[in-house]
């Protein structure tokens, strides 16, 4: 497959705009579709490698991807333009929805529906975690880490500022011993 990076900053901006505007229910599939299939900026392998890097880094994965790719193609201005393109429309959408919601929030039926959506969203988190967790069930050290994080942060309500560094050190220790 022939791939070529975007030629202008405008092209970069509209590409990321298209990703942000369409990405209902998860950005990753739309990022793939826009950059690999439609605009052919990247090969599939290149895309996977970039996402791998961004899952390794802290912070919003796709936000980081916009920085990494923007930088690769146009330096500082590319990173800024890609990030703004990605966030601009979703920011407007979410704020508009938020304001609309505030208008309607006194209505108990609206509150009930929106809370139901939130509970389902929480369920999606749990479903995703269970799917990712399937790969870990044969590794006792991983299960201990999963349980530890869940209990400390979810039930114990400890601050992540304490739990995350601790869990990272423990996790890296276990990984170095080939327990993960």
């Amino acid at each position, binding site marked *: 497959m022939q791939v070529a990076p975007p030629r202008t900053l405008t092209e970069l901006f509209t590409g990321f705009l298209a990703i942000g505007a369409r990405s209902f229910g998860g950005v990753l599939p739309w990022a793939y579709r826009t950059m690999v299939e439609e605009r052919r900026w990247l090969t599939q392998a290149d895309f996977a490698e970039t996402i791998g890097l961004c899952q390794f880094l802290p912070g919003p994965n796709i936000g980081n991807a916009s920085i990494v790719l923007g930088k690769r193609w146009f330096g500082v201005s590319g990173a800024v333009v890609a990030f703004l393109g990605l*966030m601009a429309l979703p920011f407007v959408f979410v704020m508009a929805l938020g304001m609309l919601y505030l208008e309607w929030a006194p209505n108990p039926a609206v509150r009930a*529906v929106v*809370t139901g959506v939130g509970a389902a969203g929480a*369920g999606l988190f749990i479903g*995703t975690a269970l799917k990712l967790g399937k790969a870990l069930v044969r590794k006792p050290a991983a299960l201990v880490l999963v349980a530890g994080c*869940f209990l400390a942060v979810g039930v114990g309500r400890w601050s992540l500022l304490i739990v995350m560094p601790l869990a990272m050190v423990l996790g890296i220790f276990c990984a170095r011993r080939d327990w993960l």
Partner: protein
Amino acid sequence: MILLDLALSFGVLSLIAFGGMPSVMPEMQRLAVDVKGWTTHAQFIQLFAIAQAAPGPNVLVVSLIGWRAAGLPGAVVALLAVCAPAAVLSWWIADLWERFKDSPWRRAIQRAIAPLVVGLTLAGGYVLCTPATPDWRLWAIAAGAAAAAFARRLHPLWLLAAGGAAGAFLLR
């Protein structure tokens, strides 16, 4: 100075958000509801719902929290704060990434992140539907959505819509 508070609070979250936003959802809830009182627990799950239903990166829930705390400037500051530190880090690491391709440390960190993400994402789901007085109805909706998401490949919007319908019946 709420804007500064937002910037610092979310800026720190940015740097510990290994595995992306779901990992820091419980901390975000603790911060916004328990520590700072920017939203109530009931509002938090509703803001989360709005961000899930809207298109775009799920990180945008921070804009809604910032907005409730300090209006439109709060929304912008919160979003930039949660993105910028990680963005700067990405900027520097991107070049080193290739060089450390075969480093055992890179493998070790990648393997270490996986169980943390699973545990913290579970905690996020649990915290969201566990208000001060536990409500079985929220758990029932979440359990249904989790089971459906786990068992089959459905578009997330269907599950959110089903959750909304269930909420209309159960939560009034």
